[in-house]
């Protein structure tokens, strides 16, 4: 088992202290809200998609360090990338956090995001790390620029109810 202390690495603490892409977008084309009632984590994610390209991304909200750092690093990672690339990362991140992907072994594109590998040993914190990624997935599938679609988000319910 990985030392859970390793979870609070300097990278994570730094992104928690100074989150990147924190705020709103004036030109958002897609938004979604993510909520984890278990610990009260709540984030709002805004995307500016042009075709398949993620031109802009920003998040806001109140959350624990794990969730906030995960959101911050996610936005930094997917900005300027395509939607397909982001969807791949969503899947890989989720697999890493739930233990389905061993980042030391299999092929993946997670790069620095592997600092979150330790959450898989902390079942109550897995959701904190995954929440921003689920919210990104929901934002891709939102049909308008309002956040009221969160209730229809297929990824929202499993997080909220768990």
């Amino acid at each position, binding site marked *: 088992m990985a030392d859970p202390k390793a979870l609070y690495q300097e990278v994570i603490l730094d992104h928690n202290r100074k989150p990147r892409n924190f705020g709103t977008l004036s030109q958002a084309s897609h938004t979604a809200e993510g909520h984890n009632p278990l*610990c009260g984590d709540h984030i709002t994610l805004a995307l500016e998609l042009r075709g398949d390209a993620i031109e802009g991304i920003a998040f806001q909200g109140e959350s624990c360090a794990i969730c906030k750092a995960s959101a911050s690093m996610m936005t930094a990672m997917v900005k300027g990338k395509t939607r397909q690339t982001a969807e791949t990362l969503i899947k890989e991140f989720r697999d890493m956090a739930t233990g389905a992907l061993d980042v030391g072994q299999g092929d993946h594109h997670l790069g620095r995001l592997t600092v979150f590998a330790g959450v898989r040993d902390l079942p109550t914190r897995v959701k904190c790390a995954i929440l921003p990624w689920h919210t990104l997935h929901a934002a891709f599938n939102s049909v308008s620029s309002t956040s009221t679609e969160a209730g229809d988000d297929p990824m929202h319910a499993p997080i909220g109810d768990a």
Partner: protein
Amino acid sequence: MTAQARSRIPGAVPETPVSSGKLNVERIRADFPILKLNVAGRPLVYLDNAASSQMPQPVIDRLVRYQTEQHANIHRGVHYLSETATAAYEESRRKIQHFINAREDREVIFTSGTTEAVNLVMHGFGRKFLTAGDEVILTTLEHHSNIVPWQMLRDEKGIKIRVVPINDAGEFLIDEYEKLFNERTRFVGVMHVSNALGTVNPVKAMIAYAHARGVPVLVDGAQAAPHLKVDVQDLDCDFYAFSGHKLCGPTGIGILYGKAVQLERMQPFKGGGDMILSVSFEKTAYNAIPYKFEAGTPPIAAAIGLGAAVDYLLALGMDAIATHEHELLEYATAQVSGMPGVRIVGTARHKSAVLSFTIAGVHPHDVGTLLNQDGVAVRTGHHCAQPVMQRFSIPATSRASFAFYNTMGEVDALVAGIRNVQKVFG
């Protein structure tokens, strides 16, 4: 405190006070096998007693004895085991009757816990006697289990819920409560001790005020029964609910005390075996209380285990328990309130063994994960009391909650853990 206890906690400062000694805590700890565990390579410091407290060996032994020598279904067989099990189950009911000083044993109903007890009152009393426009008074402090059932009744019947506000200390003022009464007030639900903040509420005065207006009162005693001497006749409450697992007993068992006059006029909550006198497809006659409210086979072992837990607590003495826990709380409060960046949430004048706090710049979930790495178990979150969190404009707190088997050294471990959290996030 013994030298051994001191050495459990690295860095315990010499001025750690010694408790006044009414309880021999080290000997008591020897009764709790789980307290010998190591977590993350450190001795477990269990400070999540408000969520669930631990079980001493005599209670574990009682469960084993029941299961190995006495198990059968109750109230049904004429054979030896059924009679033995029935006798043990009913004896446990009488133990609980004495524990809360109920007038009669038939006023003690076994439920699955506090939550089911409140739901029983909502269904049995609320659905029968309340109608549209009637008002139920609750408090901001309530646990969700004493809010949601009444909201279900509101949606079904059109009753109104009125809520007593709290001040910045986490206390509510009795005149705010009194102001909520009017000619439509039909019921009051109030918790005895707050699980989120530790506030001890003036329930006796609140009950007297309600009774002067003919309004019955349900007290949620989930956090009071493990820590204070509860006397339902002295309180004069109509209903009193608590859970076994917070009382060093098993999960899946709890108690609803109800005055016989109330229970008799209520409708049953669940239908099935044991709660009937006779059944035909035309008409069913219900059994007398308490059986009217105990449909189906109950958790017999758990009920008997709860009786053993009550024996254990009474042997220690509820006053001695309260005194020791109060000393723990005072010491912890003094230590934590002196720490820069740490804020205690809930500073009522009358408090029980709960210390809720926030650390500036650190989310409670991160506090909980880091404390766990020091072997310290606390609860983090909203404590099933979101209205309380909203009142203080915070999403959550970290909560240390004490039991009689905790030591001053464990308070030191908590304080050292908080310091470490601040260092990591510094």
